[in-house]
């Protein structure tokens, strides 16, 4: 077991972790942050995407101990003072979610994408989000939601 200090959604957490514990299960099962979902076991689907120091990572491919000293943002920590993040609002406004299982990962991946590329083309959005899979929406409305936040024409 290893003593780990990690900041999750602005709160510093002191955790005693097994070296093999994946970040996604640290978040879900130790901290009760079940908004981060698991959809595969090959780092393919992106349902577990969170922000590590503001950048999107698949939390199923990060060990809990690797997060030591870093800041993690999960979907539960995205809204500020009760107000939804612009990306969350855009997903709602554009009907960019159906079953919702991939949604937390998509929202965080999209937030990270716009941090890196504030004004992406449709093509750049599509490629920027290719690490996340959605089986319900056909992606059209996800792309529109991201475009609307980026301020590019929809």
């Amino acid at each position, binding site marked *: 077991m290893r003593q780990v200090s990690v900041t999750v959604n602005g709160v510093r957490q002191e955790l005693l972790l097994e070296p093999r514990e994946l970040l996604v299960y640290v978040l879900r099962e130790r901290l009760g942050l079940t908004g981060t979902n698991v959809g595969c076991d090959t780092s393919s689907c992106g349902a577990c995407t969170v922000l590590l120091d503001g950048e999107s990572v698949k939390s199923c491919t990060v060990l809990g101990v690797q997060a030591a000293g870093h800041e993690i943002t999960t979907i539960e920590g995205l809204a500020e003072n009760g107000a939804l993040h612009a990306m969350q609002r855009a997903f709602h406004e554009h009907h960019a*979610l159906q079953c919702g299982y991939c*949604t937390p990962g998509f929202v965080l991946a999209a937030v990270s994408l716009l941090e890196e590329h504030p004004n992406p083309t449709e093509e750049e959005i599509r490629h920027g989000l290719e690490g996340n899979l959605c089986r319900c929406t056909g992606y*059209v409305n996800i792309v529109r939601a991201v475009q609307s936040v980026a301020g590019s024409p929809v």
Partner: protein
Amino acid sequence: MATITEVEVGRVVGTSVKRKEDLKLLTGRARYIDDIELPGMVWMSVVRSPYAHATIGSVDLSAAREAPGVIAAFSGEELAGEWAGSLPCAWPVTEDINMPAHWPLARGKARHVGDGVAVIVAETREQAADAIELVMVDYEPLPAVVDPEAALGEGAPLVHDEFGTNKCYTWALAGGEVDEAFASAAASVKERYRQQRLIPNAIEPRGVIAQPIPGTGDLTLFSATQVPHILRVTLAGVIGMPEAKLRIVAPDVGGGFGSKLNVYAEEALAAALARRLERPVKWIETRSENYLATIHGRDVVQEIELAADADGRVTGVRVKLVAAMGGYLQLVTPGIPLLGAWLYAGAYAIGAYSFECTGVFTHTTPTDAYRGAGRPEATYAVERAMDALARELGKDPVELRRLNFMKEFPATIAAGLTVDSGDYEAHLDRALEILDYDALRREQAERRQAGDPKLLGIGFSTYLEMCGLAPSRILGAIRYVAGGWDAASVRFLPTGAVQLVIGTSPHGQGHVTTFSQIVAERLGVDVDDVEVLHGDTAVSPIGMDTYGSRSLPVGGTAVWHACQKVLDKARLIAAHQLGVTADDLQEEGGTFTAPDGSLVTAKEIAFAAWTAHDLPDGMEPGLEALAVFDPENFSWPAGTHVAVVEVDTETGSVDLRRYVAVDDVGRVINPEIVQGQVQGGLAQGIAQALWEEAVHDEDGNLLTSNMVNYLVPSAAELLSFELDRTETPATTNPMGVKGVGETGTIASTPAVMNAVIDALAPYGVTDIDMPATPERVWRAIHEVKR
């Protein structure tokens, strides 16, 4: 002529109300099965056969039982006494069907890779997973058969020895004089297509938690299921528990697409072990496990023949299918091809029809319902064959379709059902207009002439589908054991809010919003004042759940009727309050108006019905009603889909350049939700044409065993679709609605493949197996060249 893109807009019906479901999903506060933890809960894992076909000798669980945290471990033989019945197959399609026993754990033999042979219960998820490695099973591998046609061959390894054959059943349907149609045909085509095996891939894998209720002997089963009601009645029979003691809860469910329309071994195992160990038992499927243990779709070999007269009028259709069942029959495995059996004539007026399907056991994961279930296969065959006939006759595929459309409605099809309404030329014309068809054909010709290595292809699919499952008497006639009705209860609460309890079970489709709109429209309340309850048999005791694009045309119609019943009672109270006769009252949107202009709203009446201080003599207090709706007919959506592709003849890669879909799903309640259903369906149907395929080796190992090598498309592979609608209201329900959940999947696969073949016309390519990978396309070009 149908009007184009005009929705009949009510106060809230026909408007894109933003979804009530979204907030919890967007903030990580949903409660999916894996988010549920119960006190004292333990974890289950399943030991699965690595062989597609093997005798199971000794199962040594001693090391596993000694492993850290392990509470119990059982082989199939050791749990044999837990089962009152086999896992259910609810659709014995013929009297002489071969129906094998299907136990939650295999005994004696394993019949597909992933077949469960033992089960472990441990304190934690990790301990349960680790202990699997310590189980020693003495397997004797046997030859396997994975191809359904090979399985019918002489000497093929038998999946179930007791039948002496791999044939499960042969089922046939005919109408009109088919042999005569072919004998007198001026032209005919005979085509053979392969519907490759697909993996549904709901992004949430399956999961279950069985919770014993101490002191009562009751059991609550939480399951990521589309079908809590069907699960309750059937699982009770498997585990030998009175139905009344079993409660099923479907929490938030992360997609289904048919894969959660089933009764699975793990549900029975968790229930039996929870009962035995007196602790809540949880099992969560991994994705790799999902690829083996959750049903697959398609896997059908199709032969279709069309006969036509000299003008190109199609006079007969003859279809023969060989459909893989897999190693066992799941809930509706044998019936899936039947769901398409009426549709091999497509949207066309064809007088003679013959359909025959042979179901075959193979050493593979069972097949069952995957989005569209039988209807994508039918649509693919007839739409591809129409293009083949157009080539044969030297006609434009659009004109051939137009010539053959059914034009008068209601239209009784040769296979024997009646299509209530439609206007197929309306959506065809609209699609051609959006497309600028003539310009595209010009571009295609120019590229061919210029020797452009990137060729343009235009592919059509003018589909008709059949959904809204289903009239109970028809289901009975085709030997499905349950009905096709659905239920809704509408209850005014004292404050004027409305509680709606539904028998359908959403997992992404937006029932809560759509059904709230229906209630709001009819009863004159706000959308936000409607509470929609579902997915828990303790709250919603009756229903037939969600599949087959049935929730709106069947379940939504039940909501409409329940509202009507509430209004009927409210009218009597209104008449009493306003001192007029009930017939004197005008009602609109839940407000009753007397001839003198005095009025009272349903909301106000609800309060009076609750206080019951002054009701008509003999009237029961309260304002609520249950309606159960059994549709008189299926729902018949139709539309025109067009794919435009660029095929790189040097690399074989197919680039989808445009996709136009004009659908007629009758009247719509929430246009944005309808559009979302179409978009998602398109992605799945296009993926069958271009990317997805479950591949086995000859020993029955699944080579595409996870999301790395089974290609579920991302946003990068797809494009923004161009969608529109035409509207001919259904005549068989009061709202005029038709199903929409599967149209995109049903229509799109042949549109894309027709486009690929169209692009390669200069090379004389007439068929490519799906998915049309660059390698297959390149080989097709070069083989024909040679």
